[in-house]
């Protein structure tokens, strides 16, 4: 599983970057592509020693490629350890790394698309924000002050949803939630992803996408755009995944479907590992794990995950 905007922070994957050669190799390779195109490194701001993990990491021109890079590099680490996915699941920007693994486009082309998308946001869109509300999802429709001032971007599980909107309007919602003692969290983003607030970026980015072609996924590919297995992806798919609502619970239902799965969250925040658990129902023996978290246990988590998959030895 690959998460999107909001799951990033400074120093994400730092332990892997320092100690794991495969992770480092891919981070440098991808950073070279970024430098060729943008004229600046993404690794420098991400691993800037002056920055605290808990400080907000928000510039989309850095966060967009950085999220893609850590996710793709970590996926390479797992592949190298012999852990191969039966399914891929991306959410929002995370669908780009998922698409790279599925071979929908070449990794360098997807990274370039990530950079182009970030550029379109910066060029065409007003600043905005996103709020995660930790409460019964019915609250959204039941509360005019919330639904009139925002758009519903995502339902993560039955008591967690995310809204997008203009900064000022989100402040009103924050005040309302505070007064009602409802838990919420401002996501570290400066645009209202998954809402009409980013529509101004659509024409330019879709025009860019028209020059690209998408291949059939080589690994069964579940998208939070449809919440289902996608045998093929349309060319505007890479826009829709950041514009349309995220259908995470539906995607998990598609994967569970009478099976027990091991879900591995390869995003920086470990949020999807948590969301996946919240969507298991009834008799499910599925499990869900994260590698990178804010708590700097990447290597330990990775070793634990390797232990779940017995080594395959030819004899």
């Amino acid at each position, binding site marked *: 599983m690959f998460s999107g905007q909001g799951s990033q922070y400074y120093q994400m994957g730092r332990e892997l970057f320092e100690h794991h050669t495969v992770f480092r190799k891919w981070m440098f390779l991808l950073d070279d592509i970024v430098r060729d195109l943008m004229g600046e490194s993404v690794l420098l701001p991400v691993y800037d020693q002056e920055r605290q993990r808990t400080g907000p990491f928000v510039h989309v021109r850095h966060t967009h490629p950085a999220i893609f890079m850590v996710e793709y590099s970590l996926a390479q680490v797992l592949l*190298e350890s*012999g852990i*191969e996915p*039966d399914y891929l699941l991306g959410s929002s920007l995370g669908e780009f790394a998922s698409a790279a693994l599925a071979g929908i486009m070449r990794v360098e082309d997807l990274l370039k698309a990530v950079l182009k998308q970030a550029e379109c946001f910066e060029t065409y869109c007003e600043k905005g924000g996103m709020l995660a509300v930790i409460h019964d999802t019915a609250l959204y429709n039941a509360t005019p002050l919330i639904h009139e001032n925002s758009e519903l971007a995502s339902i993560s599980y039955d008591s967690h949803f995310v809204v997008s909107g203009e900064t000022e309007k989100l402040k009103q919602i924050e005040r309302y939630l505070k007064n009602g003692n409802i838990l919420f969290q401002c996501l570290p983003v400066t645009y209202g992803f998954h809402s009409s607030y980013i529509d101004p970026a659509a024409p330019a980015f879709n025009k860019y996408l028209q020059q690209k072609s998408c291949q059939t996924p080589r690994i069964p590919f579940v998208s939070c755009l449809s919440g289902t297995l996608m045998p093929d992806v349309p060319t505007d798919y890479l826009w829709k995944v950041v514009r349309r609502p995220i259908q995470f619970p539906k995607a998990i239902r598609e994967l569970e479907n009478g099976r027990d799965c091991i879900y591995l969250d390869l995003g920086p925040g470990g949020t999807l590992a948590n969301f996946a658990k919240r969507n298991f129902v009834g008799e499910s023996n599925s499990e869900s794990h994260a590698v990178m978290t804010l708590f700097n246990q990447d290597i330990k988590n990775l070793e634990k995950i390797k232990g779940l998959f017995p*080594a*395959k*030895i*030819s*004899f």
Partner: protein
Amino acid sequence: MMTFIFPGQGSQQKGMGGTLFDEFKELAVKADEILGYSIKKLCLEDASQQLSQTRFTQPALYTVNALSYLRKIKETGKKPDYVAGHSLGEYSALFAAGVFDFETGLKIVQKRGLLMSQAAGGGMAAVIGLNEGKIEAIIKENSLTSIGIANYNSPSQIVISGPKTDIGGAGTCFEKAGAHYIPLNVSGAFHSRYMQSSKATFEEFLKSFTFEELAIPVISNIHARPYKQSEIGRNLADQITHSVKWTESIRYLMGLGEMTFEEIGPGKVLTRLIQAIQRDSEPLAGRDDARGPGV
């Protein structure tokens, strides 16, 4: 140049083969007749947890490898320049080279799987992180005389075999030297002197078969050089008691010139071994089809 490589025991996984059994329905039906059970159900459902039992693993992998090869040729219309397979995978390589048809190969593999599954009291373990010389030194220093090297998988992955209790007890000797020691789920000491009686029965069994001309060079596990037409039967029997020289086989192929490897069959176990071999060892110099003394 292109070499197709075929995985052996250890690469099986539930779900392997996917739609191949429907795509090559006629062959799947023939396989069911020979085996007496549904190969498709075994590979896709494995309801009775048999897929990892040698007797079932071997025919299942052979079938999936062979059908994967047929699909590959159908799709590309292009045959490889060389083929090789790891242990059981060598039968898929011989099938690809036209030495026998699918059914004949399956009958031989079925017998081989059955005989090898009957070997009891043996064990195997993978030693990861030590090279051949270090492993031999540890075996000598600790007088582990019953233990031998079964598979030279890569410069840092070597599988040993011997009596079950000795394999169980040897772990600490290797771990002390910094190795990662992984006992394998198998009841026989494959590729060792303890397989002598399986080999003898198998050799008798093979006498009733004749082998067609090799249409593609097959690199043999026990010699790490191309098969000779006149030695096919003997080679197959010897393989049961001899080490699999995978590292040397790949180094030989690397030495033939610019070589691409493609794994045909389930998983990527051999691909990763080849990546390690390419990283950590040199191609064998020149085209040397001669064999060293003895085997």
